[in-house]
């Protein structure tokens, strides 16, 4: 799985790392139980400070996407799927759907767009 970091973007690097790991899991590039690099190794790989990677991992851990262990490092969480989306995800989705509505999309068009993006993530 490849991270593509854009240093010219307004989105902080730790958020880009977090976003792309989430998308990687959604696309199946990272399976539940897969090991993630150590903070040091990923920082070396990305050419960023260890604090940046640590922040991304903390966020992913809080969201329940990964688990961390002092000895075995970080790994993708094996989710049951019954937990449902977090409150932040629902609020985020609400905001994005609002933006689509303002952009003039009908419910059908917005749903179609959601379906396409959802399927892209699971291909």
């Amino acid at each position, binding site marked *: *799985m*490849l*991270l*593509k*970091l*854009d*240093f*010219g973007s307004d989105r902080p690097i730790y958020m880009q790392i977090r976003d792309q*790991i989430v998308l*990687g899991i959604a696309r199946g590039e*990272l399976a539940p139980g*897969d*090991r*993630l*690099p150590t903070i040091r*190794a*990923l*920082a*070396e*790989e*990305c*050419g*960023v*400070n260890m604090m940046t990677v640590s922040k991304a991992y903390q966020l992913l851990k809080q969201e329940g996407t990964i688990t961390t262990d002092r000895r075995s490092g970080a790994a993708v969480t094996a989710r049951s799927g019954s937990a449902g989306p977090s409150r932040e995800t629902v609020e985020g989705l609400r905001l994005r759907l609002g933006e689509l509505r303002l952009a003039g999309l009908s419910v059908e068009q917005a749903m179609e767009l959601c379906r396409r993006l959802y399927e892209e993530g699971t291909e």
Partner: protein
Amino acid sequence: MNALITWGLTIWLPILMCVLNVNETRFKKNLAVGVTFPRRAREDPAVLGLLKGFKREQIVLCLALMALGVLCVVLTWPEIGFLAYFLWIDLVIAAQFVSYARWNGKLKAVKRERGWTVPAVRAASVTTAAVPVKRPGVWWFVAAAVIAAVPAALDRTLWFAYLLDAAIALGCWAGARYLYRNRAETVDENDAVTAALTRVRRRAWDRVWLLCAWTMAAVSAGIWLSTTLSPAGGGVVMLLTVVLALGVCAVAVALEFRVRHVQEKLTAGSGEGFYVDEDDKWIFGQLYYDPNDSRTIINARTGVNSTVNLARPGGKAFMAFALILLLGLPVMGLCFDAMFGAPQPLRIEDGTLLAESWGKDYALSLGDIGSAEIIDALPKNMVRVMGTGADAILKGRFSTDQGAATLCLDPRTGPWLRVTMADGTVYLLGGGASDTEAVYVALSGR
């Protein structure tokens, strides 16, 4: 003779640089002469034409620099030999750099014209970074260092050389560990290729350093053996060191080409869809500058080598040091010419016999001199213990078939002055332009 050895050790430099640069015209990791291209560029007539031109220029440059080097050897300027030599080395490096930068610029212009520039993103392979890295343990290097150091306990004369070898062997561990950036060799989204490229590069890097460490152990053991078996075998020591050094260089170059070949083969199908393009970070295709990269040590784009990030303070300091070293080479040449030039003529001043040479003066009080004699032939089997040995000067402590002696003489032409001090210390002085006989007469008449 010394000049021939010096030139012989480096005269192949333009050939090596030429071969490495010509190899840069072969697409590997989507790169040619430091420019990233999509796959379709490999059939583009403009790109192919420029690559051909670059190749031709490298060959012409190589021949011209070699001819200049040979000319310097043939003309053998005794007074400015080292100056000429170091100026030539600077010229070889500068000519190669400028030529590469020029053609890199031309290729980048074609890339821009064709609209092949892609948005700059930093690609990082999570999959490869998650795999634990296996590196050779420090004990492999410590063992080499111990073997290099052991002769220091057995032979106190050359203890410094043995300990230096041991220190270099340990330094090889530091080099292997800290001069390499543990980053995946990402070319595109193919994880298998990334993993293979990374593995090949790491292995080659570790092997070179390990080989260096064990070569130091071999040099140390070899010096000890040759001096033990043949105490007058100074030439054997030198030959051994040169042969082993050349051997390491040959293996390192072979590994570099092996890795380049693998990089070429594994990425032959790359360049479609997403591919890594970091051209904007590489000035002239050779100097890395990325303020967003927190690392100082950077892996070179092709082959095994490492370089530095000029945006980091450490990178700037390293480059400044390298520049000072390069620009200082001619100054060093002038110093060497003085150091290895013939000694000053002998003279007597204020009751003292003076034998002077760059960096070392011998002042022998006339009152302490026991006897002096003129000799027309130097002792045989003169082996340097500590000091300088060159075509025009022998200076320092030497062992000879007539016992230990301190030398400051021009060995090319005699006669020489043999001075035995009251305490038994023997000095061999004069030769060359020295009016040794006149000094001898003055000494005899005292």
